[in-house]
């Protein structure tokens, strides 16, 4: 009995035929029928009657589990029990879901926040003069540039909330200054202004030496002839 059991469990591995599947038992009927069966359902079907005389090589492994299953009353699964022994996979692997310490260390440094907010790093400012202006403004305002600079570089040492508030206020001021400067620039670069400038220079040039080495926009042609 135990021999049979062990033979059932341990002889299935080497006895596996690569051509004939273990899950199916196929028998051949005399008038051309091919009976497909799984060992599980073997007891359900009316297989008591003799099926085929010419039971060929495919049948030779089937009587053992069949008779054993009948005797013990087990239903032997169609797949061998070894297939359930594999380890389980956890579908999102823990490297994606784990809340590691590195997550906090990435974005929480106040210095980095400052770097992002700092107007000198901004992409929208092209000229460096604004920064200089802001620096001078700073100096006039709180008269201790070294202290403020220390605060800006290392705000997480000092009381960082107040420092941040001050910096934010400065940033707002700087943006206002930038806007005003941009407005002035725009006005300067207007078409009318350019024309007027050119005309003024021309008058000056007529009175003084006639050399034109400055660029001028093409004017409206005056047809005097």
């Amino acid at each position, binding site marked *: 009995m135990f021999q049979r059991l062990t033979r059932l469990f341990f002889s299935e591995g080497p006895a596996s035929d690569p*051509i*004939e*599947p273990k*899950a*199916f038992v*196929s028998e*051949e*009927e005399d008038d*051309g*029928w*091919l*009976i*497909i*069966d*799984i060992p599980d*359902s073997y007891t*359900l*079907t*009316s297989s008591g*009657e003799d099926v085929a005389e010419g039971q060929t090589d495919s049948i030779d492994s089937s009587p053992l589990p069949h008779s054993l299953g009948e005797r013990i009353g087990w239903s032997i699964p169609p797949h061998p029990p070894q297939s359930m022994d594999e380890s389980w996979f956890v579908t999102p692997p823990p490297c994606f879901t784990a809340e590691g310490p590195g997550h906090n260390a990435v974005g929480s440094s106040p210095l980095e926040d400052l770097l992002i907010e700092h107007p000198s790093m901004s992409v929208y400012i092209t000229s460096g003069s604004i920064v200089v202006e802001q620096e001078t403004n700073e100096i006039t305002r709180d008269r201790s540039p070294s202290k403020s600079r220390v605060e800006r570089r290392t705000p997480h040492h000092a009381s960082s909330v107040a420092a941040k508030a001050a910096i934010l206020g400065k940033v707002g001021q700087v943006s206002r200054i930038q806007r005003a400067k941009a407005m002035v620039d725009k006005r300067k670069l207007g078409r009318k202004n350019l024309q007027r400038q050119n005309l003024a220079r021309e008058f000056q040039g007529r009175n003084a030496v006639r050399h034109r080495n400055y660029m001028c926009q093409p004017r409206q042609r005056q047809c005097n002839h």
Partner: protein
Amino acid sequence: MPPLVNSTSLELNTTSFKQRKRLDSRIHEVNRVKIRYPCKIPVIVERSHREKVLPSLQKVKFLVPPEITMGQFVSMIRCRLSLPPSHSLCVMINERQMACLSMTMLEAYTGQRDQDGFLYVSYRSHEVFG
């Protein structure tokens, strides 16, 4: 008797099971096999007439248990044909409908059986990358 067997096996390559047998004889066969095996489904598995590469099966008449799925049946056909795993197989029901592999044979049989009581299944090679 042997020459007759030879002639039928020659015919088997060219004509289908339906063309070889008349309707009443097919119905008679189904009834006989159903009396003998009441828990089995009679299935005819043939090579598709457009198939050129795959070999044809020696036996075309199958009796399958109703609870196995179409996928199990297809894998059984693969084993019968002894196909390499690189070759893909496509199984059609009634030569026109692709078999759903999760369907059990009983579902396929009740839905798509022929008027004679057989379930006709044909196989052909599947052009995967085509």
